């Protein structure tokens, strides 16, 4: 340990503004070899492999289940790409791409039981898909007509949370409620909560506090961290000195790292974690080790902070391609199936686009609507005054 008099201020200009090649490659090596603990059931080459810890959570994942997961992955990627295109064409103010994170989201989402509750951040389009939310419901947020139009109670998928990490505490509180209501334990109506956030969020106090609360109240909540390696331009190393999943130990609950580009592994691990919670053993931290293949948002320019090599390497781990290869090689699924899914995804994209382009402009008093559950006389007066003012332009 250094003592204060040993400390010499760094020379100006020595600090690098972007990671060195060695830095990146070192990170990729860790990625490539995987942590010894990394859970994987489907290799990047599409080979089904065994993990004795989690095989029992994947026994039903036959060829039909794989086809279904493949369909999810392709459709979600397709409308995500359409969202990006719509932003580029001026139809959306912004889009938050999920490219590369399809498996992490579909795996987790498909592991949920209908009675489970999800708290997303703002990139969870794939999880929304698994909760039966039509992709068009996501558009209002990015076009600016609403802040999320789906019913969080009916879909059991909370609204997107933009402030980083806030939802981790909200999810923990919800899970405490599940426990207080006696919905934890053996039985068909037992419930759990799953909360989604990114690697950057782990630096937020709310995430730390959520971990503390969940641990001391044994809340049935799965903390699902999609480590996509970058918090806008800041690498994971800027957030933590230790692998993120290892942080759970300090709070007193299990942490596990899963290959976030392996939909089977994400599904199996999340099933296990949700069962832990439902039976009363929660919480659990899952680190889905994945990669954001696109920008943070359409306002971001990743070419300023990351290297092309990195992107190329992760392309080899594509979450969809490995399922396709497995379906072909191990289950002899023919081209016809893939063509069908492709056609379906094109139809979805067309419907998505048409819906977006035809979304009506909100009425002028939309902004006053539902600020309070009970009427506020001051706000009602403002609304009335503004509508009167607005009406004065009619016919002008």
């Amino acid at each position, binding site marked *: 340990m250094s003592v204060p008099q040993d400390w010499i201020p760094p020379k100006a200009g020595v600090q690098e503004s972007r990671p060195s090649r060695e830095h990146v490659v070192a990170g990729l090596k860790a990625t490539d070899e995987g942590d010894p603990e990394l859970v994987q059931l489907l290799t990047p080459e599409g080979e089904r492999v065994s993990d004795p810890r989690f095989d029992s959570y994947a026994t039903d994942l036959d060829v039909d289940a794989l086809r279904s997961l493949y369909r999810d992955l392709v459709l979600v990627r397709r409308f995500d790409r359409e969202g990006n295109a719509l932003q580029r064409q001026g139809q959306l103010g912004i889009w938050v791409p999920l490219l590369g994170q399809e498996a992490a989201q579909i795996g987790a989402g498909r592991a949920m039981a209908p009675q489970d509750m999800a708290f997303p951040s703002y990139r969870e389009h794939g999880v929304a898909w698994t909760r039966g939310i039509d992709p068009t419901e996501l558009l209002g947020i990015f076009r600016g007509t609403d802040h999320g139009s789906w*019913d*969080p109670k009916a879909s059991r998928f909370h609204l997107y949370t933009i402030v980083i990490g806030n939802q981790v505490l909200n999810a923990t509180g919800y899970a405490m409620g599940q426990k*207080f209501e006696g919905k934890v334990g053996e039985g068909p109506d037992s419930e759990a909560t799953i909360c989604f956030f990114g690697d950057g969020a782990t630096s937020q*106090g709310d995430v730390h*506090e959520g971990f*503390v609360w969940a641990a001391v109240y044994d809340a049935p909540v799965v903390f699902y961290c999609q480590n996509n390696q970058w918090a806008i331009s800041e690498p994971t190393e800027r957030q933590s000195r230790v692998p993120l999943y290892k942080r759970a130990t300090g709070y007193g609950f299990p942490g596990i790292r899963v290959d976030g580009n392996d939909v089977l592994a994400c599904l199996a691990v999340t099933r296990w974690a949700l069962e832990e919670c439902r039976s009363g053993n929660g919480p659990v931290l899952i680190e889905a080790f994945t990669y954001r293949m696109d920008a943070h948002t359409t306002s971001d320019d990743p070419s300023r902070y990351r290297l092309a090599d990195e992107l190329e390497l992760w392309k080899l781990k594509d979450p969809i391609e490995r399922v396709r290869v497995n379906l072909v090689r191990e289950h002899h699924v023919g081209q016809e199936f893939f063509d069908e899914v492709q056609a379906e995804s094109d139809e979805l994209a067309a419907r998505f686009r048409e819906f977006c382009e035809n979304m009506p402009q909100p009425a002028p008093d939309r902004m006053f*609507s539902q600020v309070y559950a009970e009427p506020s*006389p001051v706000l009602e007066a403002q609304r009335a005054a503004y509508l009167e003012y607005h009406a004065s332009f009619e016919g002008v």
Partner: protein
Amino acid sequence: MAQTTLAKALNNGLRAAMERDPKVIVMGEDVGKLGGVYRVTDGLQKDFGEQRVLDTPLAESGIIGTAIGLAIRGFRPVCEIQFDGFVFPGFDQIVSQLAKLHYRSQGKVAVPVVVRIPFGGGIGAVEHHSESPESYFAHAAGLKVVACSNPADAYWMIQQAIASDDPVIFFEPKRRYWEKGEVDPDAEPQPLFASRVVRPGSTLTVATYGPMLKTCLAAASAAETEGHDIEVIDLRTLSPLDLDPVVESVRRTGRLVVVSEAPSESSITSEIAARVQQEAFYSLEAPVLRVTGFDTPYPPSKCEEDYLPDLDRVLDAVDRSLAW
């Protein structure tokens, strides 16, 4: 009728709300066995159990953030923040989530959370224990903000705040916790979001809330000996502001003094001054005057007698208004 302290009135109100609705839970630091640092939750954990009176870890964002989740689940959490100056770690959850979820979901999600905050100075405390942060919350759309000033209001207002489907920031005047007043549990309570004329008068109007009500009533009594008939209004609700009774009063008296412990700049008192001059401009015989804390951080406690509005400063403003 028995005299009850304001703290005990709150305790009785919380108890009544918890007995009425099993979804009401109390949560915060030290609210269980200790009964809260001001004993407002005294005995509740013993009677309602650890699941309805939660001694939480020490983190305000955690208290508010988990209360929001519990409310989404269908509970009605009442959070205790120990002191005014400690609410700021939870401020993000209050303004980013608590205030906006109903709007964001277009009414599909209600978050009926009450955040209780003992506020104000005058108790000789160290830094961060004597602040009046109410204007921050009144500025946030989606929140309702109230302040009680006496035991009867404390008893009813806490129950009404818990019953409200909107999030309510509930300010309690900590230096009045031990002052007694009559509480009639069989009375018909006044609506929560309404101000009240506490002392009718015809010469000048004083509008105030929370700990300053007592000070203003004392000032009105003192002014009476000099022949001034002062009307005193307890605002009770800071957002939405029930300003009509103030405007109506100013139309009769022609003069308004607004009193608050909070700093004056961009505050509740600024809001009242602006709106009253807008709505009662031709009735005013003098500008709206304000008696407030100063635009400084809350000072060391040996200076607080200078900082806090007192009887003399209120009377001085009354004299200046009358002399206009």
